[in-house]
């Protein structure tokens, strides 16, 4: 910005993506493709009605109900729909189970594909080039930056959601949670544990 000898604050112009979104919004509204109330409803849906609490409910159910877990691993889309979660960016789900032998983590190297019905919209880092490139080339290094250390004899298995499948990680149920209710368990499940960039700590 040019040098000024006065001290008042200037209003910075919006960023390029913000301007592009405003232009698209204006066009969609003016051409009558979408109405303003529908836009509000879409924003409300993805800000308030979907998010990782949905996935956490799925994980907790799988931990307490072996039959549900079996269905979840065999037919992820169907078992997740049983819990009331389905739709855009979750049409074809595959649930991958973390065990002592395999630690799964998910990335979309091509863009930002992510299971919306169970996790909501992706965090900024998931869409950023450093995560997308390094998750496949140096997964253990990325995990270390997330504070996750995976045992040397455990396979780190990275899933690139480059096609139409969307992936949800079923994290390991922490020790010391035997007496907990399904709701208490769901409250422990973090978003990152379902991407595979986190593990769930045992309760203190």
């Amino acid at each position, binding site marked *: 910005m040019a040098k000024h000898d006065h001290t008042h604050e200037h209003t910075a112009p919006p960023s390029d993506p913000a301007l592009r979104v405003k232009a698209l919004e204006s066009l969609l509204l003016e051409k009558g*493709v979408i109405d303003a109330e529908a836009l509000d409803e879409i924003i409300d849906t*993805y800000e308030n009605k979907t998010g990782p609490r949905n996935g956490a409910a799925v994980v907790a159910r799988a931990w307490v109900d072996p039959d549900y877990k079996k269905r979840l691993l065999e037919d992820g889309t169907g078992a997740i729909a049983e819990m009331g979660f389905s739709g855009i960016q979750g049409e074809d789900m595959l649930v991958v189970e973390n065990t002592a032998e395999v630690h799964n983590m998910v990335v979309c190297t091509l863009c930002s594909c992510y299971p919306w019905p169970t996790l909501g919209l992706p965090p900024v880092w998931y869409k950023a080039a450093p995560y997308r490139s390094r998750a496949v*080339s140096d997964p253990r290094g990325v995990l270390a930056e997330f504070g996750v250390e995976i045992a040397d004899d455990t396979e780190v298995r990275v899933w690139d959601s480059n096609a139409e499948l969307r992936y949800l990680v079923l994290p390991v149920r922490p020790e010391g949670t035997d007496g907990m209710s399904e709701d208490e368990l769901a409250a422990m499940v973090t978003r990152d544990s379902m991407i595979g960039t986190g593990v769930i700590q045992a309760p203190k």
Partner: protein
Amino acid sequence: MAVVTADMVAELSATGASCRLDETATPRFSVGDHIVVRNINPPGHTRMPRYVRGKRGVVQRDHGVFIFPDTNAHAQGEKPQHVYSVRFTPSELWGGDASDRDSIYIDMWDDYMDLQG
């Protein structure tokens, strides 16, 4: 009248639009097949990540039949074909001293691969 109105949003978001097709297509590969990814560089849309081109992997699972995005994105038809989960080793993808204890699973359409010769 807008094409998308507020009362349609809940159903639209809960339904989505799967690219899975209900039709049959003959799979070119079976689980356990050793494949090599075609080294293609299409000028248009593709869902094949550049880092697997020319690389060798093993088919782990058949996901069923899906629309082929490379043609569909250019209005050249759905070209239904199978999509597979294919396992690659770090040393195959990155060379050097990468450990093969770990793995990368990538989803590949029939038209992206050939059997290893």
